[in-house]
């Protein structure tokens, strides 16, 4: 009861968040139910493919949430959030790789296939410990956190702001992409990590595992939302918002702006890392393309379309754009890049507050 009241208190005055989260809860429940309990012959059965796709969207939504925290509330446009997502994904994929054991093509119990292929004799040091799921989960959060801390510590301390910060975050993810494309890095080069068999002893291809992953992702999203909302509603959140609006003034008032920025940036990176870790088992592959600047900038447009600075807008944006992307890339692949490019232009020119802003505008007119 106590816990529930905290959640309710966090969501107080957050009508949009309540609506989005509860409708998502309904969708997730219906999809899970229709997949598991309605026989395949029935028209109400929902395929496992749909379950996986929905899980992927929810992981993206969590990523968008993380970006909205830094962009919408701290005013930092990160063009490199894909890097944190990918690092979390790689950390968890390493655990999944170790779970394959001797079921790989080469049947080597000690080494993943690509290492056998590269004639490695023993596991590189940075792969040690990843057969332990708890260690892997810790790394999913620690690796992005450490990168964000080091990067942010340098960047914020020397007061790199605005466009410069955006460009160096882009350079960061670009550099990581180039590095991960190298075979000698020990992360599978351009093929990435794939061919996972099971997770925590459960078969990854089983329907129940997929549904469980979907539900876990949903709860991670809710958890992430609550954390972000809690931070924003707190006293710390107010300082953060004022940093966005008038950085020098906050600094003159005696607040250590760098520390606030760093804290939010690291929290956001951890959330992005968790999103990546949830993404990997569902799509069953991770490769360096996730590091590409294109992906990072695409997720910026999710947030922009949903409406930045609202948190739930980021969730809406991520799901809507991903849905459109899935539809177009299979139905009209030629049109998708025109549409995506057009979205960037139209949203920035005519919808500065995104879908959420549009809805509230319409409401205002009606009232």
């Amino acid at each position, binding site marked *: 009861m106590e816990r529930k009241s905290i959640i309710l208190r966090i969501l107080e005055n957050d009508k949009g968040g309540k609506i989005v989260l509860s409708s998502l809860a309904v969708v997730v429940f219906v999809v899970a139910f229709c997949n598991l309990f309605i026989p395949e012959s029935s028209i109400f059965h929902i395929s496992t493919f749909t379950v996986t796709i929905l899980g992927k969207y929810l992981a993206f939504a969590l990523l968008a949430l993380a970006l909205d925290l830094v962009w919408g509330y701290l005013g930092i446009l990160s063009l490199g959030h894909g890097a944190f997502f990918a690092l979390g994904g790689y950390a968890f994929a390493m655990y999944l790789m170790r779970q394959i054991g001797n079921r790989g093509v080469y049947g080597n119990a000690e080494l993943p296939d690509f290492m056998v292929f590269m004639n490695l004799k023993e596991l590189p040091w940075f792969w040690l410990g990843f057969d332990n799921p708890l260690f892997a989960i810790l790394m999913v959060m620690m690796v992005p956190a450490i990168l964000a801390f080091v990067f942010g510590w340098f960047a914020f301390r020397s007061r790199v702001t605005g466009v410069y910060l955006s460009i160096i975050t882009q350079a960061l993810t670009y550099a990581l992409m180039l590095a991960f494309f190298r075979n000698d890095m020990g992360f599978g080069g351009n093929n990435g990590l794939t061919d996972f068999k099971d997770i925590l002893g459960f078969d990854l291809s089983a329907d129940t595992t997929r549904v469980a992953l979907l539900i876990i992702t949903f709860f991670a999203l809710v958890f992430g939302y609550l954390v972000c909302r809690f931070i924003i509603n707190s006293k710390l959140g107010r300082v953060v918002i004022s940093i966005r609006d008038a950085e020098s003034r906050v600094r003159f008032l005696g607040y250590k702006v760098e520390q606030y920025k760093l804290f939010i940036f690291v929290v956001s990176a951890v959330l992005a890392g968790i999103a990546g870790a949830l993404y990997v088992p569902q799509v069953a592959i991770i490769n360096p393309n996730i590091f590409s600047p294109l992906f990072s*900038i695409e997720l910026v447009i999710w947030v922009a379309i949903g409406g930045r600075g609202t948190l739930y807008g980021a969730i809406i944006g991520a799901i809507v754009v991903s849905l459109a992307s899935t539809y177009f890339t299979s139905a009209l692949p030629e049109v998708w890049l025109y549409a995506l490019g057009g979205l960037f232009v139209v949203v920035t020119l005519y919808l500065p507050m995104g879908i959420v802003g549009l809805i509230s505008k319409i409401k205002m007119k009606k009232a």
Partner: protein
Amino acid sequence: MNILKIILLNLLIFSFSYSSTFEELSSKLSDNSFKVKEDVVSELIVNYKDEQRLEILLQNMLLGNLYFQNQSNEILFLEKENSFKSLFTNESITNANENDFSKIKINNKLRSVIKASLAKINLFANDENKRLKAAKNILENLEEQDKKILEEALKTEKTSSVKDILLESITNINAKFSTGDEQLIAISKLGSFLSAKSLETLNGLKDSSDEKVKVAVKKALNEIEFSKSIYSLIETAFFGLSQGSVLLLAAIGLAITFGVMKVINMAHGELIMIGAYTTYTIQQLMPNLIEYSVIIAIPAAFIISGLVGIAIERLVIRHLYGRPLETLLATFGISLILQQVVRTIFSPLNQEVKTPSWMSGALEINGALSLTYNRLYVVIFAFVVFFAILYVMKKTSLGLKVRAVSQNRPIARAMGIQSSKIDAITFGIGSGIAGVAGVALSQLTNVGPNLGQAYIVDSFMVVVFGGVGNLWGTLIASFTLGEINKFIEPLAGAILAKVIILVFIILFIQKRPRGLFPQKGRDAQD
């Protein structure tokens, strides 16, 4: 009367024997004696060095393709099967009866005489290129007896490039065939030559039984290695220069749009791509003018990319001034659209852009160092573009207006400058330069829809590293990054080199957020 006739006839014969024509002299080759033929060849060389037919004659004689007509002793050479061509009348005789002609036979001694003569002809030719070719040819197929001709040629040779090769040839012969001190001196001299031939000679002498020779060879080899490493250093520096000029070309347009106007144009790379595709289109439209296509493409690309840039500015960016992050997103959307347009019009695949012949090949400086012409021209071109832009920005009234608007828009407007027109023109110039960069890049890399993406991060790095709003900073930053990249590459590999550079710049910006050459004073405020 009779006496007069005899005298006249004698006079005639007399004069003939002293100055017989090329035809008469060469007819004597029909003689069976090798000794006579040898004399004839030597005489021909002395009297008809500049006669073009002599070279043809000797070459065919060497190959055994020289014949004479049995009755008239007319000299002919075998053009192709059953077809002779007369050296005297230049007429071809097809379907000839082989019995009418006899082959002019040669022996080994005669062969070497002919060879020497051929080399002699060319070594003493008036055409400089011919001499160079002959000298190179001799160096390739060195023989001991060549030494005499080489020394003779050296006496009269004036062109230094030919002289060097002659000297090298003589030194090689001395190193190989001489003995004693002369050989040792020659070996130590070989150390200063860099050709593969000298290296071959030295390597051949490495296992000599003579200790002194061995020591000298070792020393010479070390010397060659040392100068080779220096030349490879120069070569790397040149590659860095070339890489730097590519960066400069890609970044200079950005330095204007981003540096002067403070507009983040993520579609800048695509404007470069449009320039490259303009070159491709021009080559497709005018297949007969490949030689000039690049020259035509430069203004064309400037105009097309410039117009696209102006369209972007008028339609989108104009509405987003003062909102840099939004501009970034909107122009990124435009870049996606432009890429897709190119994919739709052309194809998603890379297109082949031809290189004009004057841009292919390489400038050979010596045996160890050669610079490719396309890179050389791009380096020059980058400087030309840079100084042209610098001139426009610093010395013209347009440049003055651009700088005025970028420094203080309201005051500039108060002075009667139409700021929105200047914005459009500035953006057009920046975009046009991007198009011109595309023309240059089309000669160096693959032309495809992703061409621009590869350069956008790099060009931003250059501009930020150099200091926003500072063209000189952009110049220095381009070449610094180009050189660092090329010098790290052999140590770390191409990809890691790039990563190292990016990390370096990220760290650098932490230290100096405003780049190498920050703007000072009040303008520098955001």
